[in-house]
């Protein structure tokens, strides 16, 4: 035990001597929560469009007024011919153009239907779909206005009463903050440990440690201990900021949350250890940690992109990621208030044991 603490103490000094890295390790999650909380909004708040009104009648004016009145749509430019549309797209001046053809007013007068065109920059497919929705809603409202009075129906015949549960304002922070805990802990713990151990190997001090009577397991535990602390501090910061600054609900038990988080940090540390047994240099350790732990965690755990719509192979990969299970737990605890996750928790525990065994076996193999 004393030897273990000696190694931990040495590692702690390494960390302490380099306050900038410590600062980054602690500040990064904080800054990320703030950025995600304030800066990132998945909804399109304002849609800049180019207006190509070839009709110029009171009817076309009414359509434009209907569009602008939503508050979402801003007319960025008045265009005079169609070729300007593509120039605008290429220069990113607007995302869509509303083309009102000549004769629109006349057709509407004559009935039964007049046509308009939405020309949409499809490069960003996701946003383009939203843009299409917004523009369709404008036309739907206009149609409703044109016909409702006529039919003696004041409102739409069927009205959806939509409620969004758990997340009434659909604030992004609610869903991002718990996810960030999973990402940042993987980043800090796996990356830091793998590099710390690779450094000892690169500068040759690992051999010196191994010639001492310290057991390999003690070296590992000692190296991991300080990073366990940093990981825990990071997790606490993210959760606290999410909870108190962005009002992310905390419906579950703090004990369950800390317990599962601790388990997850251990997994991340063990993964870092495993990476370090493969990488001989810090550069390589960083690259492997990036590609093998961080990227899949970010992309495949369900943090941003829904697992259900991924191709099957990626769904399999997501099933062997600890973050996938942890994410489900932490979102569940914080947002749904569920307490007990025997299945997910069990899987993470099994993963932890497997990774540690593998890492220790490899580490000892290398040491001898």
């Amino acid at each position, binding site marked *: 035990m004393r030897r273990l603490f000696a190694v931990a103490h040495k590692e702690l000094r390494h960390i302490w001597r380099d306050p900038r890295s410590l600062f980054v390790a602690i500040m990064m999650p904080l800054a990320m929560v703030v*950025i995600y909380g304030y*800066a990132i909004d998945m909804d399109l708040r304002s849609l800049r469009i180019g207006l190509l009104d070839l009709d110029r009648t009171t009817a076309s004016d009414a359509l434009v007024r209907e569009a602008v009145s939503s508050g979402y749509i801003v007319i960025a430019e008045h265009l005079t011919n169609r070729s300007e549309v593509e120039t605008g797209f290429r*220069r990113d001046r607007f995302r869509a153009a509303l083309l009102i053809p000549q004769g629109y007013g006349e057709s509407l007068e004559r009935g039964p239907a007049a046509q308009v065109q939405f020309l949409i920059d499809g490069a960003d497919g996701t946003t383009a779909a939203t843009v299409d929705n917004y523009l369709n809603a404008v036309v739907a409202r206009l149609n409703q206005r044109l016909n409702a009075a006529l039919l003696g129906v004041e409102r739409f015949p069927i009205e959806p009463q939509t409620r969004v549960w758990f997340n009434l304002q659909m604030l992004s922070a609610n869903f991002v903050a718990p996810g960030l805990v999973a990402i940042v802990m993987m980043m800090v713990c796996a990356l830091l440990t793998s590099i710390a151990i690779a450094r000892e190997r690169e500068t040759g001090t690992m051999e010196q440690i191994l010639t001492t009577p310290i057991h390999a397991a003690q070296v590992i535990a000692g190296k991991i201990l300080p990073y366990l602390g940093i990981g825990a501090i990071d997790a606490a910061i993210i959760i606290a900021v999410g909870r108190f600054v962005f009002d992310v609900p905390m419906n579950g038990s703090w004990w369950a949350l800390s317990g599962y988080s601790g388990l997850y940090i251990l997994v991340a540390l063990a993964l870092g250890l495993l990476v370090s047994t493969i990488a001989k*240099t810090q550069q390589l350790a960083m690259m492997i940690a990036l590609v093998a732990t961080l990227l899949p965690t970010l992309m495949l755990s369900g943090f941003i992109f829904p697992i259900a719509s991924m191709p099957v192979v990626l769904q399999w990969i997501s099933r062997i990621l600890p973050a996938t299970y942890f994410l489900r737990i932490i979102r569940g605890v914080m947002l749904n208030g569920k307490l007990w996750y025997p299945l997910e928790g069990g899987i993470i525990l099994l993963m932890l044991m497997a990774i540690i065994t593998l890492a220790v076996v490899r580490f000892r193999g290398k040491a001898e």
Partner: protein
Amino acid sequence: MRGWRAVRFLVEKEFRQVFRDKAMLRMLFFMPIIQLFLFGYAVQTDIKYIRLATLDYDRTPDSRRLIESFYAGGYFVPAEPVFTPTDIELTIVEGKADVAIWIPKGYTESLIRNEPAQVGVVVDGQNSSIAGRARGYAEAIIRREAFRRMDELRSQYPQLDAQSRRVESIARFYYNPELESRFYMIPGIVVLIILVISGMMTGMAVVREKEIGTLEQLLVTPLTGVQIILGKTIPFVILSFVELTFAATIATLYFKLPFEGSVWLLALTSFVFLLVTLGTGLLASTVSSTQQQAMFTVWFILVFGIIMSGFFYPVENMPRSVRMLTYLNPLRYFIAIVRGIFLKGVAFPDIIHNLIPMFLIGVSVFLFAVLRFRKRVS
């Protein structure tokens, strides 16, 4: 001329160092492949299957037609059946359904009486990006059903039908008619790959020499500071271009991305962008004494650069104050340029407003880095 020979030797030394480490070499080619595949396949922000739970208390042909119209669109698949309002709550809480609709008793009666019929829609809001879209789809389907109902009403009163007016819309999507998210993501990944290779690796390579003490050895040779800088950065310029070509080839041949623009424009703008990344790497190396420090410094800049570049989320969705900050972010310009070159076939005049700020930032960062490095050296 002698000066250039010295630089050439340094470049050769650097390459030997990279190529000696076979694991590193493998990684250099493995990384872009993994990144491209992850982003190319995982990022399907359009949801294909939304699990829908339905509770029909009305049980009339009208209510059944509404439910069928949900499944007909292809976005919704049936979740486990529910029988009471409490079931709806449970099925959402337990994550067994993403959306639930609830048609109350009297739905058809209201329709007949020309009163608005109400339909309850419950969306699981845990994942806001899905929730928003699932809600949009669900409401669009109900809206369509409402239109059908209005059409029916009209046909009941033929004398009214002659007076009815309607605006029809056709949407045309430029550049990416199928709206595939990978078209948008992959050019961004190409940028990220260059970024990691040139920014992070340069910083670490310089500090590595510091850490194991070989930088001092270099400094006692007659090499000048500028020669050392060139010798350290040129290999990463070459590596970046190799990776760029490699990644762009996979993107176009495997992922079938269009490449509408000019290769030369891509090369030129990449070169300007490399000024930024190499400068940042060098700058990080002058303020770091360990590789860990250098990596973390670059990493810190990189993460924020990426988040605020429009890579994941459109810049115009950000609040005004943050949006102002993104004008200082060279990544913002370069990602827009590369996407434009791949998808829109932009020409020089189209990107000049992005290129000039990136060039100014690049030159100032690089010059500042060189000045600092030389001061450190002497």
